[in-house]
């Protein structure tokens, strides 16, 4: 090898060798962004706010929170012979059998999804100073609405019913009110008491009602916050406040019962995806976004109706259908068999794969106002019998002239059947689920085992 070749070769080789590419190691992600830059403008915070509704939509086809999880868990856990669960999800089978274990994936999924959404709310609330002044009040109201509603549901599912013993001593769930930026030992939080959680929920929801506008697209409204307050007060047995809150929703006049009754459900099939006028709050679903967890388990594919789907796991039993009065031809016929020869009967309420999931329908407000007034002997807004007749008239039933508490509760049960009320109504009315008393440990979800495992400050519920 000649000397000159040697030198050239060595020079080229050295060049290749020493070419610096250290700065090439600074690679940034492309479809995710650093959290430092994600909350810097008003638009960023508003996008986070949208993310809180996404949180309510659920992270899986099971629709973990308001997209179905809260509702069907209530129905399954409170069922005593009106539904037969025929699916293979053992987490749901165990709930239906009242044989829940601490690693029940529904109990875990709802908890995880609720707190993930609460953290989104906390991110919004922690960055309110970035929000344009004209939007600040509304943004705060929406975030408080979502957070308060979730804490209310967590308290209802994972803790003793309000008033079952000492609310200040009964543990509910940990209250986390600030966004998580890092994780340390201080994040192993103990459970706050039922009283503390309800107090926070009422404070937040009251502020939400004050902040929110009357109309707000598909998002939380003043009426939605008032309706949620009515629910919270009713759960506490605070009938005066419940009647007043329900009355604010009805008197607001924004929401109307729709006819026919069928148009209140299966919103994509019946209304092309519009929110029916009686929806005070609903989880939106379309063919590109969201899951309808109620459809997943209550629905089934009806060959003759395109757009229907579902696992067909919740088979409605004759014991339920027998409850409707003979004249109730609309609601007692609101059931379907996939085919003439099929053994199984399904509710018509959740057949639509892309139907919105109703969270609050206006009829609940009439029923709440009626019950609260009846119990107090008051007539806030209207007489109880008039409110009940409003609900009955919509389904073609003749008006009643006299009323009993049992009659109001039965009307409530049938009107709101399978919509997630059963468990909580049984608890607050101190009724029973089969042989289980309203305050049975078996009717309370376990704190998820994964949570107990990673957070030594948490105490498990007494039934587990």
């Amino acid at each position, binding site marked *: 090898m000649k000397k000159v070749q040697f030198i050239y070769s060595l020079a080229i*080789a050295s060049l290749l060798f020493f070419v610096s590419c250290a700065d090439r190691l600074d690679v940034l992600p492309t479809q995710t962004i650093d959290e430092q830059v994600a909350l810097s403008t008003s638009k960023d915070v508003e996008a986070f706010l949208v993310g809180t509704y996404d949180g309510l939509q659920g992270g899986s086809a099971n629709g973990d929170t308001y997209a179905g999880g809260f509702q069907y868990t209530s129905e399954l856990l409170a069922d005593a012979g009106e539904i037969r669960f025929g699916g293979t999800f053992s987490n749901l089978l165990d709930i239906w059998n009242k044989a829940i274990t601490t690693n029940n994936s529904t109990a875990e999924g709802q908890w995880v999804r609720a*707190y993930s959404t609460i953290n989104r709310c906390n991110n919004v609330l922690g960055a309110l100073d970035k929000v344009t002044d004209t939007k600040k009040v509304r943004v705060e109201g929406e975030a408080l609405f979502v957070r308060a509603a979730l804490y209310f549901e967590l308290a209802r599912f994972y803790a003793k019913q309000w008033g079952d013993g000492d609310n200040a001593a009964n543990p509910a769930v940990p209250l986390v009110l600030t966004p998580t930026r890092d994780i340390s030992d201080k994040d192993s939080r103990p459970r706050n008491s039922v009283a503390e959680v309800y107090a926070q929920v009422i404070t937040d929801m009251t502020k939400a009602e004050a902040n929110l506008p009357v109309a707000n697209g598909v998002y939380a409204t003043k009426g939605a916050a008032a309706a949620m307050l009515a629910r919270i007060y009713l759960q506490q047995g605070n009938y005066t406040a419940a009647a007043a809150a329900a009355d604010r929703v009805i008197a607001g006049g924004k929401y109307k019962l729709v006819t026919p009754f069928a148009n209140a459900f299966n919103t994509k099939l019946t209304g092309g995806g519009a929110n029916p006028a009686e929806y005070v709050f609903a989880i939106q679903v379309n063919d590109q976004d969201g899951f309808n967890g109620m459809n997943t388990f209550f629905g089934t594919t009806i060959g003759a109706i395109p757009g229907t789907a579902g696992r067909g796991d919740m088979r409605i039993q004759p014991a339920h259908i027998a409850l409707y009065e003979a004249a109730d031809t609309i609601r007692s016929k609101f059931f379907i068999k996939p085919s003439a020869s099929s053994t199984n009967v399904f509710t018509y309420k959740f057949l639509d794969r892309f139907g919105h999931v109703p969270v609050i329908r206006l009829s609940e407000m009439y029923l709440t106002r009626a019950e609260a007034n009846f119990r107090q002997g008051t007539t806030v807004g209207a007489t109880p019998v008039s409110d009940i007749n409003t609900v009955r008239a919509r389904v073609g039933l003749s008006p009643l002239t006299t009323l009993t508490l049992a009659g109001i509760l039965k009307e409530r049960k049938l009107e709101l059947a399978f919509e997630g009320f059963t468990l909580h109504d049984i608890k607050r009315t101190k009724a029973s689920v089969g042989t289980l008393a309203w305050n049975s440990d078996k009717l309370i979800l376990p704190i998820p085992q994964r949570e107990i495992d990673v957070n030594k400050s948490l105490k498990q519920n007494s039934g587990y």
Partner: protein
Amino acid sequence: MKKRLQFCVSMLMILFSTVAYGQYVNVSGVITSSEDELPLVGVSVVVKGTSKGTISDIDGKYSISAPEKSTLVFSFVGFASIEKVLDGRTTIDVMLKPGADLLNEVVVTGYGSQIKRELTGNIARLKGKDIENMPVTSVDQALQGKAAGVYVNSGGGKLGQAVTVRIRGNSSISASSQPLYVVDGTPVTTGDLGNYGGDTNPLADINPNDIESMEILKDASAGAIYGARAANGVVLITTKRGKSGKTSVSANFQTGTSEATKRVPFLNAAEFETFYRQAAGYRDKLANIDPKDPSSYTQSIFGKDGFLDYYSLGTYGTPNQVDVDWQEKIFRKAPMNQADVQISGGNDKTRFFISGQVLDQKGTLIGNELTRLSSRLNLDHKATDWLSLGLTMSLTRTDNKRLPDDNAFSNPLQAVALTPFTPFTDPTTGLPVGAPPGDVNIPLYYNPILSIDYAKYKATVYRNLANAYAQVNFSSKFLFRTELGMDILNQNEEGYFQSQTVRNQSRAANGIGVNYGTFVTNYNTNSYFNYLNTFGDHNVEFTAGMSYNQSQTLTNFTEGTGFPSDSYRKIASAATKSGGSSTETNFRFLSYFARGNYKLMDRYLLGVSARIDGSSRFGANSRYSFFPAVSLGWILTDENFLKNIKALSFLKLRASYGGTGNSEVGNFPQLGLVQGDAGYVGIAGQRPSQIGNPNLKWETTFQTDFGVDFGLFNNRLSGEIDYYEKQTTGLLLEVNVPATTGFTRQFRNVGALENKGFELVLNSQNFVGDFKWSTSFNVATNANKVTDIQGQIIEGGIRNMNRVVEGQPIGVFFTAQYAGVDPANGNALWYKNTKNADGSIDRTTVTNADYSKVERVVVGNPNPKFVGGLTNTFSYKGIDLTVFFNGVLGSDINFYGVGQYGSANGIYEDNQTKDQLNAWRPDNTITDVPEARYLRSNGSQPSSRYIYDGSYIRLRTLTLGYNLPKGLISKMKLEKLRVYLSAQNLATFTKYKGWDPEVNSDTFTSNFAQGNDFYTPPMPRTLLFGLNVTF
């Protein structure tokens, strides 16, 4: 490189000869290979005991002047050395036998190569010949049982699926435990790129027949040169190169059929009826309902409009009643065809290797098919005496008609759950049951046949692996080599689901089409200097260089719904473009490496290597890491005190210690991230998606290895024994955090684990004459233990039954301990296993009602205790027979994926495995199957009841070949004509009750969720006929 080493070996042999003789004669001759009787070039011919020597020329001729009474030593890499005493002869022709002298094999080490004799690290070598023409779709499957300490689990019988490979155990929990694959110097893309069910295997794009050798770097001293990427071991794949001389053309054709290795017996119609009458009868008794009452459980199954009436399409109890064995409907005899052509040749300056392959393999499950078209050109050119250039390039197209993952109703094997009373064909429509216009809610679950008949999902991969190099030899001692490698993978996945699949694809009411594009571009440069010199007794080699690797993955996705009819299958015709996305992710590595080898007096060996790695995966504070290793070797047989022990031909002691790293955790694990995917019905939204950890760094594994290499009886029996300990610390653990933070997991460097094991390799030539018999045996143990996870709960697998437990192997089965059946009442029982006040364990049992009160315990271990392989090769004249067994012992399998539905005492209406017929009855009280109870858990909860021993020994390959006699084929102007019969997975010896003990459901892919069976299809048993022609 290889040539230069051959040269060095020859030179060394010359150098170390010291004794001289007197009277000289000229000796000459021709050296040929016994394999093909062709001349061998470059064979070293040395006068024994002197420094005098020469090398054979291109015609295999040599000529040497040697003392009259001397001995000539003929040696050549890859062949057994031969000694010939002159005895007055002046012409000595020699035929060398290949392979016998493993010690002189050249082993690829990563940025260089070394002679096996002088290795101080542990590198297992597999030759292309060992794996060629095996009917496996990816080369990693071929590693199974072939190298000590390498555990391979193909997972299941789907084609082109990811394969689990563990080299010396599982050294990570959350980061990948798969080895790094390096093809001709370029680390290649191996991770999953699929969007339909289980993980795909990009190694399926490599034609195994192109492979010259595979080196598996197992210990730290071998691996440290790959630093942060070597903790799981490194597999170096070297493709074939041309040889100078006559152009050789070799063609191979093989054809055969595959079939699933096993069926699991399920209930037939009569048994189903008997069983469910018991199950429903129990519930009626419990609810105090007369079984004849229309509202009874019994009638809900057997009565009018009951379960069977409905799902049998009204044929139950009529003369038209059927008894369908659904399992037979989804398995098939699958043909397989493969054709290969390989052409190689060249001259002194230019050598080439060209190959092409067509593979068409159908799966043993309906709907599964893989075809591969691959071609390769490898070129080496010597431009001048100091500059050589070369290129290796392959182009492959792989089409894979894929099946969904195991946990999908459309997984064909889930058809076993369907009712035997359900007709396969709906008589009113003449179509598969469940296809519209028939009732879509029949059968019990979605009929997976519909996804075969009315849907397709095809992944097409175009893969280009290319590597160009230039090497400058500044002198015979000093060289520089630079390589540029590219691995370009373009994948298109297209799926179309017709309206008939709507029960499974609920959005397919008017058809749904999906299309995914994945583009992975992976560049790699290596540049290094190599210096080699000898100073008297001192021999040094030094390598130093840098490497830069950059990988980018781009994906896009479109989805459309609402097609005018099922004749339109492209999204262009979709009324609604219902989905779309594009993504990008990158990672980069910048590395500097160095290695020194020092040899004293040809028997004291020292190796030192180190690598500095930087990666984009870690924060600026912990971006670079340093991985050093040192190794020592001592060839005892070169010492005087052992020289006279005739039987002992070779003995070497080795020891090594060093560090390697693992960074395979996906990109950007260190950053707190927000993702913009939290939109709400059309309005954009964002959400926190990952909690950051600015201190995140590499996982580090320090490994110690002690080894002995030995050869006995002139190396007729040779072997290796190794003991190793791998300590992994700072695990990149995705730890559970309280969900109340809004996050469930965070990456942290937490905890430690270890792997310890023995490896034994034995190779023997039992018979050498006309009848040859050689045996190759390897066995390895590995004891894995998680030493510290700081109390983290890490679970996975079916119903989270796999768990990482301190003091236990990773991913043990952690669940309730089944205690059998109470003979008095048929109740399933579990041991309580709670701690008593005095610290003892409460071994009393509980029933269904208190199942949640039992303490879960370790009841099984999916990690094998022993893995090994045994190959016996026999040949006589032209006939050869290879019998290869592999074994995996001491591993457990979780059958709960199937058992929770299919061996579940009739809790659901799923068809049951036949063993459930042994359920407790008043007349059958001694059994371990609890009483059948419809819609009631009675033993179907997670427990050790479903954990089975998964040990197996498998007759992996049996090949019988015949080489037609030379005399005959030379008339046909052929060099070689071989016919063979080959069988893969011909027999399996196991106690496992499921389909296949070699199982790893593709539904679960994490390191700690191993050994799960979830309606996982078994491996194929393949019978092949092959024909090989060379001319």
